[in-house]
């Protein structure tokens, strides 16, 4: 699949010009010439991703006994369902907050002068290049009851009691948004840069107010970037482990933590595999639902 896509992308200038022919499969995959370059990656993915994934799925049905036991266990225990729900709710909140921050930021980048644009880009990218672990530890120092933020606010007389941020959903969202921001800002910015500014000028020339031109012309044109940023953020957020583990409390447990716990402390590999499969399936289902409402492939792949 990825092969088809990457090849189609390269030739997106004239999509679908050659179809049919002697060998259907060959022409479908366009495996002649340059297409062969994708083969090592394909093999690599087969060995390190598809293979283990199959083993994982198999394990969820066979360890410790053959059957649906692991899955029954997930649905029999309210805690696991709660963690699953918590995972999706947290990911959703993170996605919304990230988009609300990323969109104006990306817009600012498109209208800023080159010097300031570079500064803005650096501000997003420098944290992106720093270890997540280091950043999360720094956030612990910042957010805890006796941390920097609370101490300053208390000394300034703004609050009398420390505001609990660490070990709450607030802390988790704070940390995760911070990690996810580049993944939303960059695709949105890339799309916005490609938007022809004359279109909004034309809209104004035809009598629309600036705000109207923005909402009716610019925003719809930037939607592919928003969709890409949203999907990247959301799917990424579902699998977060370190950030919720360090910034959240026991009530904010996400599925990644539960899986780690099952693998490394209780040693229930089959159950952990079942949890991973559930996460995967739920994500696919959500993507399918999202796909009904928007053309994901076009939004993610195409700029036109």
């Amino acid at each position, binding site marked *: 699949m990825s092969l088809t896509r990457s090849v189609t992308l390269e030739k997106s200038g004239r999509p679908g010009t050659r179809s049919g022919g002697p060998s259907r499969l060959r022409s479908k995959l366009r495996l002649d010439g340059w297409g062969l370059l994708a083969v090592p990656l394909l093999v690599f993915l087969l060995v390190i991703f598809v293979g283990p994934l199959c083993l994982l799925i198999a394990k969820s049905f066979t360890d410790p006994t053959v059957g649906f036991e692991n899955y029954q266990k997930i649905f029999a225990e309210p805690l696991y369902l709660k963690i699953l729900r918590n995972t999706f709710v947290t990911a959703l909140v993170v996605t919304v907050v990230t988009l609300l921050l990323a969109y104006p930021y990306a817009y600012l980048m498109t209208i800023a002068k080159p010097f300031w644009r570079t500064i803005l880009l650096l501000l997003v990218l420098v944290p992106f290049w720093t270890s997540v672990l280091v950043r999360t530890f720094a956030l612990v120092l910042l957010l805890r009851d006796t941390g920097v933020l609370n101490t300053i606010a208390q000394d300034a007389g703004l609050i009398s009691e420390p505001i609990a941020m660490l070990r709450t959903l607030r802390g988790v969202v704070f940390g995760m948004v911070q990690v996810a921001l580049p993944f939303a800002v960059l695709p949105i910015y890339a799309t916005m840069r490609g938007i022809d500014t004359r279109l909004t000028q034309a809209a104004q020339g035809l009598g629309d107010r600036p705000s109207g031109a923005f909402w009716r012309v610019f925003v719809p044109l930037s939607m592919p970037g928003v969709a890409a940023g949203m999907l990247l953020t959301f799917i990424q957020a579902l699998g977060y482990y370190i950030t919720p583990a360090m910034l959240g409390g*026991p009530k904010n447990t996400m599925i990644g933590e539960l899986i780690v716990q099952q693998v*490394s402390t209780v040693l229930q590999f089959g159950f952990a595999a079942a949890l991973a499969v559930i996460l995967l399936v739920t994500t696919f289902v959500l993507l399918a639902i999202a796909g009904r409402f928007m053309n994901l492939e076009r939004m993610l792949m195409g700029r036109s």
Partner: protein
Amino acid sequence: MRTKAISLVSTATLALTLTACGGGGGGDDKSVTVTMWGGQAQEAHVASYFNPWGEEAGVKILQDSPTDYAKLDAQVDSGKVNWGLVEVEPNYAETACAEGKLEKLPERVVTAAQEAEVDPAQMNDCALPILQYTFSIAYNTDTFGDAHPTNWEEFFDTEKFPGKRGFWKYVTGGIFEAALLADGVAPEDLYPLDLDRAFAKLDTIKDDIVWYDTGDQQVQLVASGEAPLVQAWNGRITQAAKAGEPVANEYGENLISYDQVVIPKGYKNADLAQDWMVWFLENPQAQADDVEASGYGPASPKAVELVPEDIRPDVAGGADVNDQTATLIDYSYWAENYADVTERFNTWIAK
């Protein structure tokens, strides 16, 4: 055809690389790979009693960290055992030993342990204690300058001693034992644990509990005053106090715990690893050096006498600490109940 050939070549190359990596770890003939929890403690252990033995016996000491039971199991299952001496928790050792995943201790090690007066309660068929520590009441000396809790009953008394309480988010971390002692259960009647009663007691302070996962976190919690009272690993607190943090240990009703060292089944240099075990037991001085360097108590009581007098009051296994000990944590109980209690604990904690 061309594609097929290329993919075959790629697969073969990958397979070769994988085998090469897999086989490389085991290494040369005279080596033992030591796997522990990592950090400064591991550095201290290796410097005090692995490297000296290695130099003496002409064995190269290799290191890995941290201990990971899933990895250990996977090595034994696949028959490619790279880890030689692994620091584990006693409940894991008991379960894994019964499942045949660990090498049994040979007679010469058992004899040496007897001669070193190692507490038989801390041994099993496959595992030797390597160090001891105790779950103490760590408190912030600024917050509780005049009076601090001296037993678990006071530790649970949030009216007399207000503030958050730190506990290890881990069922074998002494939390249930402390709750039951606080509720008036006599130390000798602790096991099997009355979990209903323990959870009921924990419910009374649940809103005041802050959970930690690591040794660093517990020090941060007490030292920053965020949780001025923490059920802690005494060695961490001792070292933080030495570094000038406003923290101290209270040893009233402390709960002794220990780590063990095991050899995974099928380890190629198991005999060398067993040589080390004997050497370790016959060298209380090396253990005493480790006490000084790591803050953990020694496996054999003989080593306590060799520890400098000024740090002896904080040595788990020494008289000062042991006289106030409530009990040794019963890891046989935990071997049997670990998974069930973990599940119940997780459900309770997330409510």
